[in-house]
């Protein structure tokens, strides 16, 4: 992976990369401050971020910014993230992908079934977090029934979202060398594209 890349295949535009990292930073802030208010044992995280009152005041804004960044990603990628028959077949064989078995997996397009799952998971969880978060933001104004639902759904959606992101970070860094560069510098090597996204590579017009 460290050898010189001869052919640079553009994968993510500057706008896509900036949006992704905006979302990533907001996620990091919102998830950590959220955890600090989730358990008294994690309250020390609030101290790092300026104390409980600051965290209580800013966590909702972090969530709003994250939702906005994710909203942009949703609008930009939703068509490219549509799950097709190949993705379903791939997902059914995903245990092979997870154990690095190359045989028996359908060819992957721009995104594989797992990436698409993450995209739709985060979309649903973020929507849930946004709605329940709005309820928790203004406890005095919200009826008790809504708050009682929100205190349960907000952490559940957050757990799903954080769980997905842990796997996402692993896949994007250690597990798939070359993936991180596609999101930092924006390009991949031809060999990388051929190995991980062959169907996509064939669709790119040769320059």
């Amino acid at each position, binding site marked *: *992976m460290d050898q010189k890349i001869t052919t640079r295949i553009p994968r993510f535009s500057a706008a896509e990369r900036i949006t992704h990292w905006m979302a990533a930073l907001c996620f990091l802030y919102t998830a950590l401050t959220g955890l*600090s*208010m*989730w*358990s*008294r044992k994690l*309250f020390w995280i*609030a101290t790092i971020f300026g*104390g*409980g*009152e600051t*965290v*209580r*005041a800013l966590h909702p804004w972090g969530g709003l910014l994250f939702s906005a960044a994710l909203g942009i990603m949703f609008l930009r990628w939703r068509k490219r993230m549509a799950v097709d028959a190949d993705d379903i077949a791939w997902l059914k064989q995903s245990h092979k992908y*997870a*154990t*690095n078995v190359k045989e028996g997996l359908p060819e992957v397009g721009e995104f594989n079934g797992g990436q698409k799952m993450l995209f739709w998971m985060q979309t649903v969880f973020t929507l849930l977090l946004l709605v329940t978060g709005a309820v*928790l933001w203004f*406890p*005095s104004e919200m009826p*008790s029934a809504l*708050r*009682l*639902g929100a*205190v*349960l759904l907000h*952490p*559940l959606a*957050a*757990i*799903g979202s*954080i*769980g997905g992101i*842990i*796997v996402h970070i*692993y896949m994007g860094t*250690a*597990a*798939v*060398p*070359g993936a991180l560069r596609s999101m930092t510098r924006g390009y991949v090597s031809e*060999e*990388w594209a*051929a*190995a*991980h996204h062959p169907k996509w590579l064939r669709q790119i017009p040769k320059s």
Partner: protein
Amino acid sequence: MSQTVAKLIDTTLCIGCKACEVACQEWNDQEFTLGTFGGTYQTMPSLASNFWNLIKFNEIERDGQLSWLMSKYQCMHCADAGCMRACPAPGAIVRLENGTVDFAHDNCIGCGYCITGCPFDVPRLSPVTKKVYKCTLCSDRTAVGLTPACIKTCPTNCLTFGSRDELLRMAESRAEELKSDGHKDAGVYNPEGVGGTNVLYVLKESSNPQLYGLPKDPQIPWTVALWKGPVKWLGTAVMLGGILGTFFHFIRYGPKDHD
């Protein structure tokens, strides 16, 4: 080791003078914010962040006659307190040695989770300080051996303060007295669902506490119990499992090299 204290409210003796409301405002140095007039004798429709003790004039009709069932609405100082269960800030809600549930405002972050955790709808978020307030059982008075302000001022002995065990006995014998006077439904309100409360009531109509604005069988809401119980284990499992799982996955299978 100090004993658990309690407040006994004999609702049959309340004359609705509201002296306890005034005493509470005075002692706690709170300004009175005018509420809405709802056509009743009540001072306010409900509690507020700067109004911790409300005498309710519950109107009922009996044999074509209008009647008041008086009750006092304030923090119940539950043995199993929903506000404490819900609070994320260490030391923001504390239980004093005498059983009082008290808010330590230096540690309160103003999230308002206690409002959702409370089965009695008592804590109120102040829009000014962004912190939550409620009756302290006059912890600053009881700490130096004084009785709470509302009790000190009550002119009819409707309110009594003292050892919880003793007050429970008093309450029971008062309920018996009411029964022998013909009030067959008289009884003590000390809900078991929250482990008992440090505010006890003698009610003439004890099988219908709702008539007094008191919940029939208050419990810590089940969503709050789930959130602070199994959901925490689930979250810990997912997050720790995710981190450890991906790490050991890498150790076992290594990166997906493309050559």
